[in-house]
């Protein structure tokens, strides 16, 4: 990639961006998840043992056995189970200003999923806080259809 070449003490430097523009197939289970996101619904899948995995997976991580075909709508609200604060977001991250990465257990789910929380300030983040999704204006069937989560109330 071309960019401004700079010089410090006679040594040249320049930005270098390494990018792999992959597109991957998602398989039958995640296909249901992403297709539902396009309709602004969040789907989990029930394992044979009765737990609800969100995002859905093809196998139960506890036993390795295939999941059932019982897809369950969860959320849209949920609870932050753990988080960390990003003070200087990078260009491709979900929000242009400081935000929290959080594991969020949606209502009705037994597992937590990773997403951004737009809390404004780290002092508003805490484990156990209630959050709800903020949907992007135009949904296309990808995780970014949820622009981020925001504190409830």
């Amino acid at each position, binding site marked *: 990639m071309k960019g401004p*070449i700079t010089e410090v003490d006679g040594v*040249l430097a*320049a930005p*270098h961006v390494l990018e792999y523009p*992959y*597109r991957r197939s998602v398989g039958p289970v995640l*296909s249901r998840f992403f297709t539902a996101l396009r309709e602004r619904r969040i789907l989990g899948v029930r394992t044979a043992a009765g737990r609800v995995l969100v995002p859905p997976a093809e196998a139960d991580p506890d036993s390795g056995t295939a999941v059932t075909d019982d897809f369950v709508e969860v959320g849209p609200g949920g609870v932050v189970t753990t988080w960390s604060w990003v003070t200087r977001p990078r*260009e491709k991250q979900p929000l242009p200003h400081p935000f929290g990465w959080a594991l969020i257990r949606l209502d009705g789910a037994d597992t937590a999923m990773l997403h951004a929380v737009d809390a404004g300030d780290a002092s508003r983040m805490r484990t156990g806080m209630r959050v709800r999704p903020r949907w992007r204006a135009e949904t296309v069937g990808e*995780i970014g259809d949820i622009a981020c989560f925001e504190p409830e109330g």
Partner: protein
Amino acid sequence: MGDASEPKPVKTIKTPMRLEYQYTAGEATSRYLRGIAQGRILGQRCPSCKKVYVPPRGSCPRCAVATTEEVQLSDKGTVTTFAIVRVPSENISVPLPFASVHILLDGADIPFFSVVQGCPLERVRIGMRVRAEWVPREELAPTATSIRWFVPIDEPDVPFEKLEAAL
């Protein structure tokens, strides 16, 4: 055609990987890049094993000693290995198809990564003689893209035995 009111299920998603670096060239490679901006290719010779490295990194990886002697190299060389690239991808600026090549520049002891264009690609072969095609003088800059690519020249092939030591 299916029912237009029934949207198709999502089968794929984009999952780009992106790594943003600030690359610092170091002293030896900065001298090399300034040479490139003048249309010259500079290498460095190891004081111990006498091998000539291009681009120079300021040390010999084999002898673990600093390399200070600068050597001006020819912009002609020999293809030591190649692969034909026909699959388009974002971020590739060279027109497709092209040959991704290693070139042993005359006077160097390690091959140099570049591209061969401007000839039928079925002609590209190990031992083929090539020459750098530079951008116009006024566009020269301290960057690898000052050499647009390499093109074949009308010289006899170099036999593999003469390249083997540099591979």
